[in-house]
């Protein structure tokens, strides 16, 4: 019985840190708009004579993430391709002709607009053979994410249309969620970059974000684990977590995890003696091979740190994270340990048993004395 009591004093306590990180992808979204002034077109403007020049002002507006833009201009006379610059006037000096496209060499920022050209013209020296023919001018623009893309030369990529033509990055005002909850003064043990992965929103393929996790064990020999769970809210794109990669490495180069976030399972990240520290680098990345099908996805994950140690004399009170989160409506899972309650009951039962034994012994002794 005494053995049991002394064992219950060397209880294992837990410390928890719960942290939520938002992960989202952005999208490339451009529109081409005709800024031709109506009053600049004469009544018969669509009937061109040699030397005529009529207003046609296509502009490209960027509603999505910063991107590179190129435009293709086609001029056809009765279906036969013609030299673009013979019939198109005022081509923006910011555009550079490479192959079949006119490339805008600078990054086009959010809500920025670029000009393509200003007029359609019929040269004054055009031959009589063009009389009565139909002149067709077509222009469209293509865009690719600016980050992680080399815009030099002719883009050798497949350009696909965005899946959401209503998306506007300026309307995407949902606040970024990245919070850290320290329990039982655990900030003494685990120090993340704060805010943690705040830039993991509006990702594009090829993005990579690194943050630091510093574990400082200042008191007791402890084992620290990290679990990652998807936050079970509506509107989550869990398939995004299959593609977002997580790599955790220690400063000594030891790899703790390298795989998709969805496949991550609870694992030990440090086992430290008192006074030891361990530095981890967590890297979240979106693979470069992902295409538009992964644009505009959103998901949140919970980083759940758990520490176990022995020998602490005055265990701190664990605060239920739901109590904190209930104020802002968030619900986070409770990952606290129930060992304390179990040992408390055992301690009380042992004490009752001890006192009962003493009482019975005393009673026996009293009867023998009588």
């Amino acid at each position: 019985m005494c053995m049991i009591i002394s064992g219950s004093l060397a209880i294992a306590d837990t410390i928890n840190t719960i942290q939520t990180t938002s992960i989202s992808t952005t999208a490339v979204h451009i529109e081409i708009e005709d800024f031709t002034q109506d009053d600049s077109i004469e009544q018969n403007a669509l009937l061109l004579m040699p030397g005529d020049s009529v207003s046609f002002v296509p502009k490209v507006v960027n509603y999505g993430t910063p991107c590179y833009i190129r435009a293709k201009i086609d001029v056809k006379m009765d279906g036969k391709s013609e030299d673009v610059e013979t019939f198109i006037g005022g081509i923006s000096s910011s555009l550079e002709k490479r192959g079949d496209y006119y490339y805008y060499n600078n990054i086009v920022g959010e809500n920025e607009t670029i000009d393509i050209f200003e007029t359609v013209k019929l040269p004054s020296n055009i031959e009589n053979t063009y009389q009565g023919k139909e002149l067709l001018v077509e222009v469209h623009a293509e865009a690719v994410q600016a980050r992680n893309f080399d815009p030099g030369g002719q883009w050798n990529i497949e350009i696909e249309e965005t899946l959401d033509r209503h998306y506007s990055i300026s309307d995407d005002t949902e606040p970024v969620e990245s919070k850290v909850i320290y329990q039982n003064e655990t900030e003494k043990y685990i120090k993340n970059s704060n805010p943690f992965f705040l830039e993991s929103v509006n990702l594009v393929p090829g993005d990579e974000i690194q943050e630091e996790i510093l574990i400082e064990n200042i008191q007791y020999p402890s084992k620290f684990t990290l679990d990652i769970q998807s936050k079970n809210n509506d509107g989550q794109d869990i398939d995004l977590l299959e593609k977002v990669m997580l790599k955790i490495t220690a400063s000594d180069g030891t790899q703790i995890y390298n795989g998709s976030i969805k496949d991550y399972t609870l694992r030990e990240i440090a086992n430290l003696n008192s006074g030891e520290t361990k530095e981890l680098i967590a890297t979240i990345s979106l693979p470069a091979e992902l295409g538009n099908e992964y644009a505009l996805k959103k998901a949140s994950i919970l980083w759940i740190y758990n520490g176990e140690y022995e020998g602490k004399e005055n265990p701190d009170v664990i605060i239920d994270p739901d109590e904190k989160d209930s104020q802002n409506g968030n619900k986070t899972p409770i990952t606290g340990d129930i060992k304390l309650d179990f040992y408390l009951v055992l301690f009380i039962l042992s004490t009752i048993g001890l006192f009962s034994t003493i009482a019975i012994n005393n009673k026996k002794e009293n009867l023998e004395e009588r």
Partner: protein
Amino acid sequence: MKTNSKSNRKKLIAVALLLCLVLLIGGISAYFTDKTETLSNTYTVGNIEIELTEPSWVAANAQGIMPGDELPKDPTVENTGSSDAYVFVKVSIPTGTVDGTADTELFTLVNSNDQDGVNAGWVQVSRTAETGKVTYVYAYASATELTPVESGDTATLFNKVRFVNPTDAATTTLTNGSIDVTAYAIQTNNIPATTAPATVFANFGE
């Protein structure tokens, strides 16, 4: 040795295929992209088209004409195109020796008022004398500016020609000849009406 060589070749091919596969996998990358709709505008190149006719001309009347005869001949230019046009007409008149004067024009143009000369609304641009003929160029214009002939409208340069009437047959030499009439038209767009008719006519390369 042969077997070794074959085996090495197979290994080499396998390594090459593997390398290709690795390069292919490693080289795959996609990006977030977008492509706009196509803006398009269609224009029609205007056409300048004219037709030259002589409604009063009867070819048979021109056979065996006598000095002083007048023949109905009314070169008329109709704008059959879609756009307004400036119109020019070139007339070549045969020449001969009349009453001892060489290179005399054998026909005189007569207007709708039975007066010598072309109809009102035409101005002479040039006169060029060559062997056997004199060539005139006329523009449909006022004294100050060119007059557009609108689509569907017509303009008649003159209405008759009068054969010369010599007084001294001994010093007159008449030969067969023809009066050649050619019409020209050019767009009015981008050509100010006040441009000198000779300058505009130069566009025809005459």
